[in-house]
């Protein structure tokens, strides 16, 4: 069902946790839909210096969350905004079809966190 990479990221998720004084926080999903992904960002000079995630969801949800954090760590915010759910899925050697649309939302959570950061910055 799941690729080896998915299982690896599920079993050994990278960057799990939260950043207490995060510069940006993004969250997608809600408890009733089955998957919730929350991304915390630490930004320095428009670059993602640190990123952590918390996820409630299936194997795909955990793996995509983990993968997205690994992909974008060190990226500029603009670069990170270009990372799509599709790219995350590909980096994991694909996801089962029924998981593609529902549990592949980690990039959305990332984008929400970046927007949260930008809103806060703009509001400063």
């Amino acid at each position, binding site marked *: 069902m799941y690729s080896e990479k998915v*299982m690896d990221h599920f079993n050994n*998720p990278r960057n799990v946790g939260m950043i*207490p004084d995060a510069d940006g926080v993004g969250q997608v999903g809600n*408890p009733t839909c*089955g998957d919730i992904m929350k991304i915390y960002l630490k930004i320095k000079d428009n670059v993602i210096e640190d990123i952590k995630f*918390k*996820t409630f*969801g299936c194997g795909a949800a*955990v793996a995509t969350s983990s993968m997205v954090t690994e992909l974008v760590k060190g990226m500029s915010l603009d670069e990170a905004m270009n990372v799509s759910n599709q790219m995350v899925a590909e980096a994991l050697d694909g996801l089962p079809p029924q998981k593609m649309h*529902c549990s592949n939302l980690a990039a959305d959570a990332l984008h929400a966190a970046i927007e949260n950061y930008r809103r806060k910055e703009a509001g400063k």
Partner: protein
Amino acid sequence: MRNVYFDHSATTPVHPKVAEEMCRYLGENSGNPSSFHSPGRIARKTVETAREKVAAILGARPDEIVFTAGGTESVNMAVMGAARARRKKGNHIITSAVEHQASLYTCEALEKEGFTLTVLPVDRYGLVSADQVREAITGQTVLINIIHAQNEVGTIEPVEEIGALAREKGIPFHTDACHSVGRLPVDVNKLGVDLMSFAAHKFNGPLGAGGLYIRKGTRWERLMYGGSQENRRRVGTENVPAILGMGLALELAVADMEKSAAYFTVLRDRLVNGVLSTIPNCILTGHPSIRLPNLASFCFEFVEGESILLSLDGRKIAVSSGSACTSRLLEPSHVLLAMGVPVDVAQSSIRVSLGLGNTEEDVDYFLAELPPIIERLRAMSPLFGCEDEECSEGEDCFACTAKR
């Protein structure tokens, strides 16, 4: 690492004696039961002997037992066949909110054909009541369709009471007995059913063999057309080795039933007590006592079922999250929702079902492995314990708003 199969409600290993018999048959005979020559007659005899066995065990007559390819086919045949045959008498079907998908979606399909459904609610243990059935009956009611032992939570429905009511009212009654046949004493007359579905692979018989009991005299319409097998009620060359296997498997299951029910009850209770006493925010779903001896189903709040399943699988423990054939994969179990379990809690369900070969050591291994898994997943969950003491997200933080 131990290898623990705790998903016997999804499907069971074939009993070694059954596998042996089937493999012996495969090597020895290859007749078509419809053929008149000796290999054909051996095949026919094999099928009819199995039919007599199954019928005797279920309290039925041999000609009331139809062999099918599995539980889903039996349920489809029963529900569609009984409802459609009475189309002119009425168009109302009574069913429950905790049926297996095979019943649920078949009833929904009949709705599109013009039938109306009453889907009875259940209490928090998943129980339907006979009184509700009584109240739901109208002059148009042509079928009552209630599961016997619920496949996700193990609750046993009051089928006898409903059966008595159905007979009183003269309304045909089908029960999906896929999880009771072979595990509980099942007698079609005691239950008062007119139709009953079961599947061999749920009681250590082979895949590819199911059964449908149709009480003599029940008006019923078939689903498929072809040869004259099974009195034309289920056409197509009979799956002889599978039917042979089903007969033997049921015989073995029934011979051992009391002993194994007692054994599994002890194991299950040890497991349930172990889980509930070591893991906080965990609930046992289904009825606390009116339940299958081999099944326990839990919700582990704040973590999602599949992630528990995969983590246990990493420790070579096979369980299921809800039912194995959940069709709307990402939706929470309709059974748990019907029992009033909140949606987010329903997402966290795990079904542990014991069976042939399981031991106390398996249970203890499970009890040792589960807590750290739940802990690890909860630590990863945005729903569980906000780590930010000065969290400013307010309503947006599910962990802050979630009940602890």
